[in-house]
Each structure stands twice: as structure tokens, then as C-alpha cells.
């Protein structure tokens, strides 16, 4: 386990956690080519958990875990204390009638840049994975 921590639902806390995880990825040799994609997915996942999952309620926690698996796979799990949601019911932001809506693109971006994006049945736990180049 590279990182495991829970934090209160605050965007500044979230930014601090994001930076800590980025520093750990860098320290563990994750390549410059993979870091921006991972940071984008981490930002989207944390923002969704804090804003949509926990509704910015500071009494609710977001739990983040990050692993570097044997096959150079980075795996991140983000769990909030919200009611959960069904990702299949989120309006497709790429549909013509939704193109000019200013929100709802986080999941699309995570799926585009990660190898795998999964939600648990309750819809309050996100896991994303990406196979990375690791510098020795």
C-alpha cells in the first residue's frame, strides 16, 4: 500500500491529499507520461466524492487508498459516505443535448485516461487502475 488516509470533505483538504499522492507516485518512479493522466483521474474522483458524494459536508469522510501492484499497475480506491449513485444513470455528457452543460464529464474523462474504472454496487466507492511505466 502506497497511501491510505481518510479526510474530511473539504476541497482544500482534497487538494492536499492529491499533492501527497502525486509526490508518492513521483518518488516511486511513475513516469512523466503517466502522471498527468493519473492526476486527472485522481482530481475527478476526489472532487466527485467530496462535492457529489459527501455534498461538501465536513462531518463526512472520504477514504483514499493507493497501491502499486506487481505488474506496474497503479490502483486507487476512493470511498465517500454519501448515498451512492448509479453511474449508468448519469446523463451522457457527449449526447448532443448535453454538450453545452457545464458539468458531468468527470466519469467520461476517467474512463478515457484510465485502463479500468469501476464502482461498487452502492455507488459510493470508485476504483480506477492504470498500468504505468515505472522508472528504475
Amino acid at each position, binding site marked *: 500500500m502506497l497511501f491510505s488516509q481518510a479526510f474530511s470533505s473539504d*476541497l482544500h483538504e482534497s*487538494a492536499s491529499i492529491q499533492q501527497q499522492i502525486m509526490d508518492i507516485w513521483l518518488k516511486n518512479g511513475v513516469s512523466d507520461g503517466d502522471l498527468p493522466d493519473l*492526476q486527472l483521474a485522481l482530481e475527478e474522483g476526489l*472532487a466527485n466524492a467530496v462535492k457529489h458524494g459527501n455534498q461538501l459536508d465536513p462531518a463526512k469522510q472520504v477514504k483514499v487508498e493507493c497501491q502499486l501492484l506487481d505488474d506496474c499497475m497503479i490502483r486507487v480506491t476512493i470511498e465517500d459516505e454519501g448515498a451512492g449513485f448509479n453511474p449508468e444513470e448519469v446523463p451522457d455528457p*457527449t449526447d448532443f443535448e448535453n454538450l*453545452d452543460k457545464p458539468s458531468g464529464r468527470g466519469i*467520461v474523462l476517467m474512463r478515457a485516461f484510465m485502463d479500468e474504472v469501476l464502482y461498487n454496487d452502492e455507488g459510493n466507492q470508485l476504483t480506477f487502475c492504470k498500468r504505468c511505466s515505472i522508472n528504475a
Partner: protein
Amino acid sequence: MASDATRLDVQTVDGVTVARFVDNRILDEAVIQVVGDQMYRLVDDDGLRKIVLDFQSVEHLSSAALGKLINMKKKVDASGGQLGMCNLRPDLLKIFKVTKLTKVFDIHKDIEKALKAF
């Protein structure tokens, strides 16, 4: 926390306002808020109508930043103006392609081509 420092380098070229993003990653919520506010001021406070957003320095942006860009486009359209974009790196263009926002924005390869569109 992001400072309220200028996050857009604004110049006028041939009567068109060229706003170049200073940050290379527009991911952090606080940065996105300031970038959005500074973009909106170009239209709301400065009354500018012909604007090109130059992404030369930008490596990545989040869905929240895309939301600000969409609102900026709506503001410019509502004012009867025109908004162009240019100098998007391949990784950044991928973000616009996977979200199909290439259908919403007027995206050009470089500043010369963006200016010719006005």
C-alpha cells in the same frame, strides 16, 4: 489555496483579444475558480467580444475547468461575440475529443489560424 494572481496573459492582436493561460495544469478547484473569474471579466467587465484562448502552456485540465470554458463560450455567444481556441497539445485535444467538445468550440491549430477566423 490558489492566489488571485493573474492566471491569464492578455494581449490584443489585430483587434482580437488573445488570452494565454499561465498555468500548465488547470486541475485544482481553487485555480479553476480564479481562471474562470478572470475569463468572465474579459466579457462582463471589459466588454471584449473577439477572444482567442491560447492553451500553449496547458498540459491538462479537469472536467470542472471544461465547465468554466463552456460557461465562457455561452457568455461570449450571448454578447454577440466570437470565441476561438488554439495551441492545444495532443493530450489536451484528447480531452476535448472524448467529451465531444470539439463540436462546441472553435478550435484552431495555432494563433495565426485562430486570428484568421475573425
